[in-house]
Each structure stands twice: as structure tokens, then as C-alpha cells.
């Protein structure tokens, strides 16, 4: 293969991807694909998205070098791509503004979305408020408990938040319930999918909307002296990671490393490291790696980070892994929380626990490569939502025994 790996169109990425959904959704997915194919080449759509990115999200996001953190990462130079500074606090807004604009173009008035940590739900509720769309967010009941503040944020933004009490009560069940809503209301409703997984066109479309991360960072790094030796990002479904990787896919000297949630450790079975511990299967509309038992039943995943607590992964990541273009490393809860504290204490930047997995990967890689290396880490979101959980992890609440 000699062509570019960038912006692969789908529906298949190698053997992975596709569209494995009930017939009832096929017409809507065709309509969405068609609308997106037209929008992506329509200058008016591109201009509007660019205007929103600049005047609403606050793009381009900056690059911050973090030397005091890097001293703990083998002395390598470490740069952060600051998606945490985006309006609404994470990379999710990049995708949501694109899909909300598309919803308007299709002429639908209602959007639904799933959310794990609440970042995608907050971003969707934000875009719905901005564009006057009715908004319903499905969120696993366990996640509504560990991310109560984000539930309140979504409600304040005018969204209806529906806790999902079935199954494992996490992101995967929220996706199931959102699909059920979509099957029943497909004529009036668009599903704003939050990650680069699901049926075609979502993996390619979400990647395109997140691609701005790597397009910007590549120029920014070149201006700072050259391409990094590696780009690291956390991977749940994998939208910030695929957006962080895409513009570098043809830069073969740049290592691309996705950091998966290893929870208590891959060997314990309590983890969400799909590419490390899974095998091929069909879940939520596409073929990719999933955590499953011998029969094909999805296995419960575990991670301290609600946003990475998902037993599947986007099909393009599975493909990049299969062809060896990207590596996927398991990062435990404890490693992520150590990195969370380290960045906060050394740089005064509190990352989302999701993003802390990528920071932990950077510490490992920096130790491996030493002071000559330059690492770029996508800080996909900020840690405000995680304060309560982090305080509990580090026994920092007043009155608690240390």
C-alpha cells in the first residue's frame, strides 16, 4: 500500500468497521452519510464550522511545554495539546458542533446522545442550547452517580438526562438505550454519537471533526522546531486519539501511542483495555475488538475513568493496531492517578482522569527514550469534573483519615 493513511473514508478500515445495525436505522444512516458527504465539500459548511471553532470553542488550542512534569518522564521534552481549554472543557465540542450543524442541515429538531464521563453529554447539551435543538442524554446510572456534577451541568443547559439502569449501568448501556430511542424516533431525531466508533459514517465522520487536533498540533510542533517523536492520547472509544493521530499517519517516524484503561490491571480481568485484552467482534454497529467471553457476550469493563470505561474501541484504531502503525498501551487506574497528581502539582494543570492515562504513557515512554525525545500528549479534557473522585482516591476530604 503506497497511498496516504490519512482520512480513510470507511465504511471499512481493513477488516474492521462496517454497519451492523437493525434495518430500521439503515435509511437514517444513509441519509446522514449522504448529508455529511455533501457538507464536507460545501465551503459554507466548512466556513461555519471554522467560525464556531474560532469564536465559540476558542481554537486553535494552545501547546504548552511542561518541563517540571517532564523531569519525571526521563527528562524528555513533553508538550501538551490543550483540548482541556476548549469551551465546555474537552475535545468533545469539536465533534458535537459538526454533528449539530449537520442535524440542522438534515432538518431534524431533536438530538440524542450517550455519555460516559459526561463530557460528550455536556458538549452535546451545549451545542443544543446554542443551536436551539431539543436534547436528550442517556447516561449509565453508575456514571450519573460518579459524575453528578456533569448531570447538573447538562440539566442547567436545558437537556433531559435519562439515567440508564439496565446492564452494567455504564456507557455501553447508555449507547444501547440511545440506539433504542433512535429506532423509535428516527424520523425526528439525529443521534449525535460521541466517539469514533459505531456504524458507518460515525467512525470516519467523528474522526474528521476531531482531526483539527492533529492538523493544528502538527503545524504548532513544526513551528517549535520539528515533529515530535511520539504522539500520545487516551483511548476509550478513541475519538480524541484518532483526531490526535490522523495528520501524523504518514509521518512514519512519529510513533502513535493510544493509552487504554487497564483498571486494576489487565491480568485481573477488571479493565477496559480492549486492544490489549479483547478480540474481534461486533458491538454497537461495527466490527472491531471487544471485550467478550467465548460465546460473544460483552464483558463488563472497569476503569476509574468513566470516559474510558467501555468494552469496545473504534474500528480505525483496531486497524491501525493490526497494521502496526499505532501502539496501544494499558495504563492502570493507579498509574493514571499518579500522573493526574503529578501534572497538577508540578504544572498547576489538572487533567481529566481520562487524559491522565495518556500522561502516564508519556512518563513510561520518556523513561524509555530519555532526554533527547520530544513527546506530544493530548490533554483531552480538564479535571474539574473529577475533583470529588480524585479527592476520594487521595483521601483528601476533610475529616477522612489519611
Amino acid at each position, binding site marked *: 500500500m503506497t497511498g496516504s493513511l490519512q482520512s480513510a473514508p470507511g465504511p471499512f478500515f481493513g477488516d474492521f468497521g462496517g454497519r451492523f445495525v437493525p*434495518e*430500521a436505522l*439503515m435509511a*437514517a444512516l444513509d441519509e446522514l452519510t449522504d448529508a455529511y458527504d455533501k457538507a464536507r465539500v460545501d465551503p459554507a459548511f466548512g466556513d461555519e464550522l471554522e467560525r464556531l471553532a474560532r469564536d465559540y470553542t476558542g481554537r486553535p488550542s494552545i501547546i504548552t511545554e511542561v518541563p517540571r512534569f517532564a523531569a519525571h518522564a526521563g527528562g524528555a521534552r513533553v508538550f501538551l495539546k490543550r483540548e482541556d481549554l476548549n469551551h465546555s472543557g474537552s475535545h468533545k465540542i469539536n465533534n458535537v458542533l459538526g454533528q449539530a450543524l449537520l442535524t440542522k442541515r438534515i432538518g431534524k429538531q431533536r438530538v440524542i446522545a450517550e455519555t460516559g464521563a459526561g463530557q460528550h453529554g455536556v458538549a452535546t447539551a451545549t451545542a443544543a442550547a446554542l443551536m436551539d435543538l431539543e436534547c436528550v442524554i442517556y447516561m449509565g446510572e453508575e456514571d450519573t452517580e460518579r459524575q453528578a456534577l456533569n448531570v447538573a451541568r447538562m440539566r442547567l443547559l436545558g437537556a433531559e438526562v435519562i439515567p440508564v439502569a439496565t446492564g452494567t449501568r455504564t456507557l*455501553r448501556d447508555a449507547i444501547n438505550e440511545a440506539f433504542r430511542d433512535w*429506532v423509535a424516533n428516527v424520523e425526528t431525531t439525529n443521534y449525535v454519537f460521541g466517539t469514533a466508533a459505531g456504524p458507518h459514517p460515525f467512525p470516519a465522520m467523528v474522526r474528521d471533526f476531531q482531526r483539527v487536533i492533529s492538523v493544528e498540533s502538527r503545524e504548532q510542533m513544526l513551528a517549535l522546531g520539528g515533529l515530535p517523536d511520539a504522539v500520545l492520547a487516551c483511548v476509550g472509544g478513541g475519538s480524541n486519539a484518532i483526531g490526535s493521530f490522523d495528520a501524523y499517519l504518514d509521518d512514519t517516524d512519529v510513533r502513535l501511542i493510544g493509552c487504554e484503561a487497564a483498571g486494576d490491571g489487565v491480568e485481573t480481568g477488571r479493565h477496559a483495555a480492549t486492544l490489549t485484552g479483547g478480540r474481534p467482534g*461486533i458491538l454497537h454497529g461495527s466490527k472491531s475488538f471487544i471485550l467478550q467471553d467465548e*460465546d*460473544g457476550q460483552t464483558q463488563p469493563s472497569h476503569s476509574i475513568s468513566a470516559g474510558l470505561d467501555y468494552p469496545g474501541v473504534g474500528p480505525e484504531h483496531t486497524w491501525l493496531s493490526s497494521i502496526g502503525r499505532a501502539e496501544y498501551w494499558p495504563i492502570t487506574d493507579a498509574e493514571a492517578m499518579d500522573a493526574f497528581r503529578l501534572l497538577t502539582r508540578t504544572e498547576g494543570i489538572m487533567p481529566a482522569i481520562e487524559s491522565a492515562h495518556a500522561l502516564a504513557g508519556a512518563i513510561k515512554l520518556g523513561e524509555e527514550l530519555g532526554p533527547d525525545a520530544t513527546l506530544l500528549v493530548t490533554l483531552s479534557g480538564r479535571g474539574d469534573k473529577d475533583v470529588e473522585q480524585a479527592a476520594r482516591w487521595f483521601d483528601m476530604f476533610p475529616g477522612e483519615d489519611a
Partner: protein
Amino acid sequence: MSALTERIDAAKAEGRVALVGYLPVGYPDVPTSLAAMRVLVEAGCDIVEVGPAYSDPLLDGPVIQHAAAVALEGGVKVDDAFTAVRTVAEAGAVPVVMAYGNLMYARGWKRFAADLKAAGGAGAITPDLTPDAAPEWVEAARAADIDTIFLVAPSTTRERMQLTCDASRGFVYATPLMGVTGERASVGDAAERVVGAAREAGAARVCIGVGVSTGVQAAEVAQYADGVIVGTAFVRALGDEGDLERLRAKVEELAAGVRGEA
């Protein structure tokens, strides 16, 4: 001709439509679910849809989701579904499975088709696989002489209706209402429209699923479809208690409905 088409045509020859009953395997436990499948056959189902419980049943409503969760907590395996298929065949009805794609993919398309055939199964309904998404399955099923039963919906375009009806064997599974499985107060005109569209695309036998829960509804559907598929109402009747007599009464009500006696 296949076992399915023969049974549907035999019902027609009796001046009625076929009654298709669905139950998940392992609800409330494996032995009771096997007994419940025998009750479906004894009380008047022509065809029984055996549902291997799946962890992420995204086309099922709350009643069947609950049943699947109970079954999986009880340790049900996909192997148990083949036991259930055998049970239905021995009881004298035509067994099919209604299986989510990953359970089939995990076993291997060919092996799934072969195991189903060996157990006496006649076909498979695939709620999250369309014919264009799963050519490997269609090929494996044809080779094993298993009927491929695909779903059509009110949102199905004319082009997709043709593609789906062309790829279907045994019957076409029409869902008259947009939505997941569950009971509805009224099935309405949409049912007749979607059946009509399937017939225009050349479907010889069309069964209606999703929403039918009473004998009166069954009688209504019987006027234009070739079969009535009932799932949620049977699962609810069986219940967590595994009440076989309550189930029998419900099946008899629907069986009377397809005869126009409701």
C-alpha cells in the same frame, strides 16, 4: 420449499395465519425455558423463535431485556439455544433462532449455521444484521440449508425492501412500528403498509412482529399478513416465576386470534 414455508402454507390451507412465538433461552432458568417452549408448541404455535440471551440486545424493549439479563445471570450459554431448538423440533413445531450478530460471529458463521441445522433448526432471524452487512452469513446459511429471515421496517426504502426481500428465505419479518420489541395498544395501518411494500418487492410470506400482544390484534393482523409473531406478551406471561399455565392461557388466546376467533 422449506420447513418454514410448508408450515406457513399449511396454516393458510386451514384458513388461518401462522402463529410464531418467541422466548429467550434460560428465562427464568434453562429447564423452565425448555418446558415453556414445549408449552408454546402444545398451545398452538406453528413456529418457535428461540432467543439466545445476549448482553446488549439493542432491538429489545424492557421486558425482553430483563429476561435476557436474568438468563445470563443464571449462566445460560449459546449451546443451550441449540438444546432449545431440538426441544421445539421434537415437540412438533418448526424452530428458528433470533440471534444477535456477535453471538453468531463469535461461534463462526459456518459453525453457527451447521450447529443450528444439526439441532433441527430451520432458519435464523437476525435483528442487527442486514443482508448487505453479512454476506458471509448468507453464504453460510445457504450452504447449510438454513433460511435467512431478515427484518423490514416502515423506514425501509424501496431499494432496500427489494434487497432484503430478495435475500430472505422462509418469510420476511415485518416490524410495523418504529421501535423496539414490546406491547403496543394498536398496531395500526403501518402494519398493512409495510406488508404491502414487502409483497410488492416479491415477498411471498410476510410475518408481523413487534407490538402484537392480544388475540384481537392477532386477528386484525391475520387479515393481511401470513403470520403473527408474539414475543413480549409471552415472556411477560411466563414471568420470573416461570408460570407455565399463565403462558399456556396467553398462547391459546393468540392461537384463537390467528384463527379469527378472538
